[in-house]
Every structure is written in C-alpha cells, then in structure tokens.
C-alpha cells in the first residue's frame, strides 16, 4: 500500500488536518510554518496520530523535533515510507 501514496496525497491530508485544528485556510500552504498557524506541539502529536492511522507510519515525539513547516512534515512522512 505505501508505494502507491503520493506526496500530493500526504500534503492534502496535512492541509485538511490543519484546517480541522483551526488554522486559517488562506494561511495553509507547503511552506507555511506551524507556529504562524498557531499549531502547537499538542496539534503535532495529533497530526502524527493521523499519519500513523492513514499511512502506517510511526512518528515519535523526537521525530517531530525541528519540523517547522508543512513541507518538512511531508518530507518526514515520505522518508519513513521509503
């Protein structure tokens, strides 16, 4: 299953999650910073849970350290998939 997942699909899923977290839709984009969207560590834990549910990728708290933008988060998921 993981081989069929595209970068765009993951990015879209992250966008949807951010909207659910309360980020303004016009702020959301690949280079948007989580902090600027008022997305904090508790949200990122939830994001990790979503990614795990949907793509079977295990993300720990330490994996998320240094992840500041949507692009970095998607990169991280892609690297775990490969």
């Amino acid at each position, binding site marked *: 299953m993981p081989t069929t997942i595209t970068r765009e699909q993951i990015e879209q899923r992250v966008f949807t999650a951010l909207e*659910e*977290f*309360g980020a303004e839709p016009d702020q959301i984009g690949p280079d948007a910073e989580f902090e600027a969207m*008022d997305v904090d560590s*508790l949200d990122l*834990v*939830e994001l990790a*849970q979503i990614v*795990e*549910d949907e793509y079977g990728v295990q993300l720990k708290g330490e994996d998320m350290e240094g992840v500041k933008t949507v692009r970095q988060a998607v990169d991280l998921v892609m690297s775990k998939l490969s």
Partner: protein
Amino acid sequence: MKRQAVITGVGAVTPLGVGARTLHERWTAGQSGIEDGVGRCSEFEPKEHLSIKEVRRSDRFTQLALLAAREAVADAGWDDGPPVDRDRAACVMGTGIGGINTLETQHIVLREQGAERVSALSIPLLMANAASGVLAMKFDLHGQSFGTVSACAAGAHAIGMAQRLIAYGDADVVMTGGSEATLTPLATSAFARMEATSPTGISRPFDRRRDGFVMGEGAGVLILEEEEAAKARGARILGHVLGFGSTSDAHHLTAPEPEGRGAAKAIELALKDGGVNPDEVVYVNAHGTSTPLNDRAETRAIKAALGEERAKQVPVSSTKSAIGHLLGAAGAVEAIATVLALRDRIAPPTLNWEEEDEGMDLDYVPREARPLPNGDSRAIGLSNAFGFGGHNAVLCLEAH
C-alpha cells in the same frame, strides 16, 4: 478594614439561555429551562460562539466557561485583558467533576480502538482545572489561577477564594465562577443509581412531593475587583461580595447532617465576615436542590442562623426550580442570580412549589416573583451552596 471585593461584571450560560440577564429575566418571569427532566443548555452551540481551536481544545465544561467569561469581561468594560497589572489578575474556577465528556469518550476509544488511538488532548481537556487555565490564557491573567473542587459547593468556594485573594492583597482583579457539563451517560446513570436525581424529572424544591434533583449544566463567571481600583477606573459596580463562610459537615459522604448544623455555621460565618446582622438580610437564594434531605436540613440551617422569627420573614427561593442542579456551576450561577435579583429588588420564585411539608414553613416564594421591600434598606442577600462530601459554602452579597 479589609480590602473590599466588588462585582463589576457577570456572565452566564444556563438552561434558560445564553446570558446572565437572560437567566434573571426568564427566571423572574417564571420560565423554566428544564425539558424532559433535564436542564440542558440547548441555546448553547459551541461552534457558533467559539473558534475552531477553542472548541477542539476544550471539554464542554470549559466551553461553557469561555462564553460566560466573555460576557462577564464585556459587562465589566474590560478592553484588552485586565484593567490592572496582569500579574495582579487572578482566576479561580470551580467544577464538581470537570471534563467527564472527554473522559467517557476517550475511554470508549481506548476500549474499542486501543491505547494508541487515545487523544493526546485527553488529560488537558478533562482535568478539573482546565477551565481556570484556559480562561487565564484567554484573558491574559498572570496572577494565581486554580480550580476549586467541592462538588456542588465548588462555584461558591471559587468566589469565596476570589474574595479572599482580593482581601489579602494577592490580586486586584479576579475572574471567578464555576462550570459543569455532566449530562453524560455515565454521570446521569450514576446519579440515578444513587437515587439523587428525581425519577419524575420535576424540580420542586421545598415542596412535600420533592423526590430528587434535576441534572443541569452551565457556567457562571463574575469579575471581582478591588473596590478602590474599580472606582478609580470608573467601573460600574453591580455589588459587593461582602462575606464568605465555609464549613464541613464531617458527617456522611453524600447526605447532609440532618440538623443543618454545618450549613448554619457557614451562614453565620458569611454574615460575620460581611459585618452583617441577620436582620439586614432581605433575600436568601437557597441551595434548594429538591432532594428530601437537603431541603429539610437547609430549612433548619436558615432558621438556626437567622433566628426563627427572621427566617420566616425573609423570602427564600431556589434557582434550581427553574434550571435544575448545575453542580459545580450552581454556586456561581446562583450568586449571579442573587445579585441581579437584589439589584432589581425582587425575589424570583420557587417554581413548582405547591404543597407544604411538615416543619418546612419558610416563605419559599411559590410560583411567582415578588418585590422585595424597598426603601432605604441595603439590598443584602445570601447564596447557599452545599456539596457531596459535606462541603458548605455561603456567600453574603450586596447589590447596588
């Protein structure tokens, strides 16, 4: 002379609607917020009033507190944050149980989907101090903040602590009150199993046929400010928290001590703290749960504290007849109801009171509101709150 705590703003969300004045006006008009035996805040839709983030980051008991607090702050005329050094602004919020909605929901997740699926937000949402922490963050209050947990006395305890924070000089303003949202399957079943709630679904405090309380939910928030500071900024002053008295029955886990000794002592302490004589009390907002035991013990306590003669002259009514029992929010919502009633010099009614019970012969203001004696007398009242665990908390309030 101790530093005085004045009330500059109030806010409430109750089964009678959104707004403190809504509660006061509808209750005074004899309306009830109880439907199908439950006091639900059916006019409160979190997503209509709060941001997506606020809704996601809070249990319903905190959501109710957020809306009540927003109203109280606007009512107090605060602009952006507290009108004093923010380190001198405190927050004390009571709750009986806290985020039991979250607890129950996440426990289902745990059982059905496993430990990995439990939300990371579970604890910060369900903890009993969540409302006080969230309000401190939202309104930039950097002084002390904590929750009070004393079952159905929690809201009154919070206000009492707030008054003390101001009197002692620890804070110049305090956001305080209580909130509760326990209309959940577990809480509803548990109260029913202990036969605390009314099987008929009727809240009729002090009536001979009373058979238990009706569960309600809601929140009440008051802004207390140190009197001189409030006057200096030109705040409109609704009233004073004159006194606070608190005791323990140390008798039984749930039943009140039958003679109401602890409750009477709490009333006496509140009067003493406020420098008030029993003769100056013109209205009593009773705890009045509609349970057989509370209403009898409370009647005895009022008589013991005010004296038999004075007790029979003073109108005594129960807000719970109109909205049910808001548990940890009750003491706060009812303190607000008391202040607004005193301001209008009116005793709102005890709805559904029709039949006198033996030995329960106070003036319970049956069915219809009644004007309080006017004139030059001060508008001083008592608001009683008693909780499981034997906690008694009484506020002595004066309106202006």
